[in-house]
């Protein structure tokens, strides 16, 4: 019986991963700025999700559960990379962008990239992935007020960074 339930959940996770794979890829890419690494992160996240399927208590929270896996896998990857890679290479990596509309956007993107991970994550999840504050709180295992405060501070930091660069 439990095996049948796991099988059903596994199928649900696989279907979910197919629908959300591009979201997960963009999210991972926003951390690592490298296609191969982002693909590795998505792959590892799906593996983890399928392997840990029995720990998913409520299938309704599949979306936030999966996003949490992708965020944590990306952050783990960055931690490992920081230990191994020289700082200079990381600076170059942050300029590896697809399409940049204009110089102002480029500065803004740079400012976003330079935010500490915990601030950048809330901006990406809220404004780019269009997740609700409650969903972000579940993903980050924080309360909603913390997320709201962090989001406010992120926008404040971005504004300050842009002003500093203009001076």
């Amino acid at each position: 019986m439990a095996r049948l339930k796991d099988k059903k959940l596994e199928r649900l996770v696989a279907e979910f991963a197919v629908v959300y794979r591009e979201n997960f890829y963009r999210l991972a890419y926003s951390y690592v700025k490298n296609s191969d690494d982002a693909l590795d992160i998505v792959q590892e996240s799906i593996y983890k999700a399928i392997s840990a399927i029995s720990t998913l208590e409520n299938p309704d929270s599949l979306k936030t559960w999966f996003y949490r896996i992708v965020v944590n896998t990306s952050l783990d990857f960055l931690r490992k990379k920081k230990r191994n890679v020289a700082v200079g290479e990381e600076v170059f990596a942050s300029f590896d962008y697809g399409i940049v509309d204009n110089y102002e956007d480029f500065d803004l993107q740079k400012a976003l990239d330079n935010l500490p991970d915990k601030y950048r994550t809330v901006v990406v999840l809220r404004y780019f992935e269009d997740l609700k504050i409650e969903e972000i709180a579940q993903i980050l295992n924080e309360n909603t007020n913390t997320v709201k405060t962090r989001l406010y501070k992120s926008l404040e930091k971005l504004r300050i960074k842009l002003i500093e660069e203009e001076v």
Partner: protein
Amino acid sequence: MNEEKLKSLKRQYLNTPIPEELESIVENILIEKNLLKMKRNKWQKKRG
């Protein structure tokens, strides 16, 4: 930070080029997982 700037950043985010490999990523994982399961079952049968 005004809304327009955030929209512009979102546009850039959504413009992230998606590699072709992503399309088959889930299927490949499931195939690999099933192959591993088959291999494990075979090994367990061998051990009796």
